[in-house]
């Protein structure tokens, strides 16, 4: 019962906190007045998830999970992660892969195309709420609004298959992510990501990523299964498949 009450509190908090200011992108006319996010954006060196800031503060339960992971890694039992088998990272790590993203505005919706693992996110800007009992997915359910020049995105509903960014840093189904997107410079997009999780974290975990704009780039196909020779076995070993067939 207490858990349920917590869920309601978190999901209700998002719309309460929304301070909509300026154009909201609900019509094409409104979109024309929004900041220009067009072009492709690639995370810049040093702008990734380790670009400074405090590490996540875990509750005892989740600190123990991290320690267990680190101990298993030390023993050589975990050499690689699920991504080596082409499983997408999910949020938040999918936003800071070494591949570009593209951000599209249409009335009432922002769509983020993510080249890595051919992922997308849709952010509903039409005032709808999160579902009361959302499906648990890799990228979650996102709603958003504009606070002047800043796009604020609120996301809930995560599968616990993903990590906070580094392997072993786990989170619960109650993870809640707020991202603030803003042009810090004309061709530099800054995204401040704040993660809260009442089961896994004792305080909000915030990090900032910076992206450089590449107007002349286009997205490229990324089918991870095309020629994936990296693998992780069930007992945690990593390797490379060197099988080769001569072309006739």
């Amino acid at each position: 019962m207490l858990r349920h009450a917590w869920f309601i509190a978190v999901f209700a908090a998002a719309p309460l906190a929304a301070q909509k200011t300026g154009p909201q992108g609900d019509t094409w006319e409104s979109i024309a007045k929004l900041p220009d996010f067009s072009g492709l954006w690639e995370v810049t060196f040093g702008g990734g998830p380790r670009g400074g800031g405090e590490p996540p503060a875990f509750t005892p339960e989740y600190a123990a999970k991290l320690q267990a992971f680190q101990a298993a890694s030390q023993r050589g039992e975990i050499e690689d992660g699920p991504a080596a088998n082409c499983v997408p990272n999910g949020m938040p790590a999918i936003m800071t892969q070494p591949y570009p993203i593209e951000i599209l505005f249409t009335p009432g919706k922002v769509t983020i195309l993510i080249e890595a693992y051919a992922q997308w996110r849709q952010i509903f800007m039409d005032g709808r709420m999160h579902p009361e009992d959302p499906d648990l997915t890799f990228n979650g359910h996102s709603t958003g609004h504009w606070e002047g020049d800043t796009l604020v995105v609120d996301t809930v509903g995560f599968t616990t298959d993903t990590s906070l960014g580094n392997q072993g840093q786990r989170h619960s189904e109650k993870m809640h992510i707020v991202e603030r997107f803003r042009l810090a410079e004309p061709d530099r997009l800054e995204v401040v990501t704040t993660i809260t999780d009442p089961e896994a974290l004792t305080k909000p975990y915030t990090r900032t990523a910076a992206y450089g704009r590449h107007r002349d780039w286009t997205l490229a196909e990324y089918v991870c299964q095309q020629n994936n020779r990296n693998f992780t076995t069930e007992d945690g070993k990593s390797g490379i498949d060197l099988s080769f067939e001569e072309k006739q």
Partner: protein
Amino acid sequence: MRQTNRARALRHVGMVLGSVIGILALAAWTSRAEAHHSFSAFDMQTNKDLEGEVIEFQWTNPHTFLWINVTNADGSKTRWGLEGMSPNFLGRRGWTKNTFEPGDKVKVVVWPLKSGEPGGTLQRATFPDGTEVVNFGGSGGGGGGAARSGGGAPQ
């Protein structure tokens, strides 16, 4: 024909990047949390030099693979499989699917597999004309990246 293709690729390549920058760039990429895979399978303390003939260059995701035949000291041949960055990454830094063609003679520097199998991570490759390609480019913001260096004008 082979040289023509390479020359064509070269003309699109902008600035020259040394391997030092390449390694710094790699450190930045690999420190990024949970990219496609860890480097636990590779011995990154060892820079292994190999000389061989290209069998095939696979311009595929999630990684390119350069397959070369290396002649051993006893005259026997070993096929090596060398993993590189993705076509998406390299394509934005001057590489093309024709950067290597079957029959090309190359000298390569790799981080070998710890397992001892004939595979590794490609760091850079040098062609007989002295041109070099570096697998780990910059951020792409500089209008170039994994460029060939040392060769001067395209042939």
